[in-house]
C-alpha cells in the first residue's frame, strides 16, 4: 500500500516536471539582447532585407558618443534618422566610416542586416521596455492583454 502511494507521488512529480518543462519552453523568454543594441526596421523588411542590428557597445569602445551624435548627426532616437542605403553610399550616417576606409564596406550586407525579420525598430533593454506595466497609454488594451501582458 505504501509503495503504491509512493509510486503515485512519483508519478505526480514526474508529470509536474514535464508540465513545468513544457511551460518553460512555451513561456516567452525575456529579451536577452545586449543593452542599447538598436534594431532599425524603418524600411528593411519592406525591401526584403533583415532589419539592421546596431551594437552600441562595440562602437562606444572605439568612438566617443560625440563622433556619431555630434559630428555625423545621428539623432538620439531609434529609427529617427531615416537611414537608407542611398544615404550610406553617399557617405552619410554609417557610410561616414563603413566605406572601406575607416571600417569595412557596405557589401557585407549581412553584418548589419542580421536581425530576425519582422523585429520592430527599438532599442533593446530600454527602461520603458523593461517596465512591468506600461507607463504610457496603451492604444489597444484588449490586444495587449491577449498578447500576455499581466499574466
Amino acid at each position, binding site marked *: 500500500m505504501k509503495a503504491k502511494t509512493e509510486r503515485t507521488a512519483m508519478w*505526480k512529480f514526474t508529470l509536474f516536471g514535464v508540465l513545468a518543462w513544457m511551460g518553460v519552453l512555451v513561456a516567452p523568454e*525575456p529579451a536577452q539582447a545586449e543593452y542599447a*543594441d538598436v534594431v532599425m526596421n524603418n524600411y528593411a523588411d519592406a525591401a526584403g532585407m533583415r532589419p539592421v542590428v546596431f551594437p552600441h557597445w562595440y562602437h*562606444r569602445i572605439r568612438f*566617443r558618443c560625440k563622433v556619431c551624435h555630434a559630428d555625423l548627426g545621428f539623432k538620439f532616437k531609434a529609427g529617427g534618422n531615416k537611414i537608407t542605403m542611398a544615404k550610406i553610399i553617399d557617405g552619410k550616417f554609417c557610410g561616414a566610416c563603413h566605406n572601406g576606409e575607416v571600417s569595412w564596406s557596405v557589401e557585407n550586407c549581412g553584418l548589419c542586416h542580421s536581425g530576425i525579420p519582422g523585429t520592430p525598430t527599438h532599442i533593446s533593454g530600454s527602461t520603458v521596455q523593461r517596465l512591468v506595466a506600461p507607463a504610457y497609454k496603451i492604444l489597444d488594451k484588449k490586444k495587449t492583454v491577449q498578447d500576455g501582458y499581466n499574466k
Partner: protein
Amino acid sequence: MKTVIKSFTIAISAAVLLPVSAIAFEASPLSLAATKPVSSAEVTGSVPAKISVSNANVFNRLLKKIEDPNAAPADDGIHDIENEPTFALQPPKIAYKGLPTSEYGNHIDWVKALDDGLLDPRYDRVDPSIEPFVMDLDIVRPVKASVPDVVFPHKPHTQWLHCSNCHPKIFIPQRLANQINMSAIILGQKCGVCHGKVSFPPTTKSCKKCHSKPKPSDWTPPLSDATVKNPWR
C-alpha cells in the same frame, strides 16, 4: 410553509456556523507555523508547487530577470541565426574582458573604464590624436522628495559627448529653466534620452549615482496638501 421555515432556520444556522468554522480553519495553519521552524529555503525559494494549486501563485510574478545580459549575437534573441554573418559578429563578453563591471545596463562601468585608461575611444572619426574638450563643473539640483539631491557632473559627460549634444535642445543652459522628473526620464525625456537606453539606466541600484548629495540633517519631507487639509487629522 413549513419547508420555508425549515430552510430559513438552516440558512441562519449556516450563517452562524460558517464564520466559526472559517476562523477555526484560519487558525490551524497559524498554530502550525508557530510550532514548525521555517527554514530560509522555504522563505526564499519558489512556492512548493502542487498540481492541484493554481500555478499563478508563484514568487516574483512580475519580476523579470535577464539570465545572460551579455549573450553572444547568435543567442541574444534579436539576431537571425539563419543569417551566416551573424556568427562573424563579436560576442560582447570577449570585448568586456578586463573592464570594470556594474550591476545594470551593459554590466560595464564605462566611465570608470575611461578614467582608468582601459579604453581610449576616438573623439574624432579619423584622427586618434584629438583630445576631448572636458569641462569639470558639477551642477547641484535640489530634489523635492526625500531622496538625496542630484549632483550632475559635467566631467564624465563631456569626456564622451559634445556640448551641442545636450545644449540647448535637451537642457536649456539656464538656471531653473529645466523641470525634470523621474517619470519624464523613464519615458525617455531629459536625462532619459541616454540614461535608460545607452548609458546606465534608472534602477533601484543606480539611484544613488545621480542622487548623491545627502539632504541637510534638519531636512524633513514637506507635507502634502492632502495631509495638511486632512479633516480627520
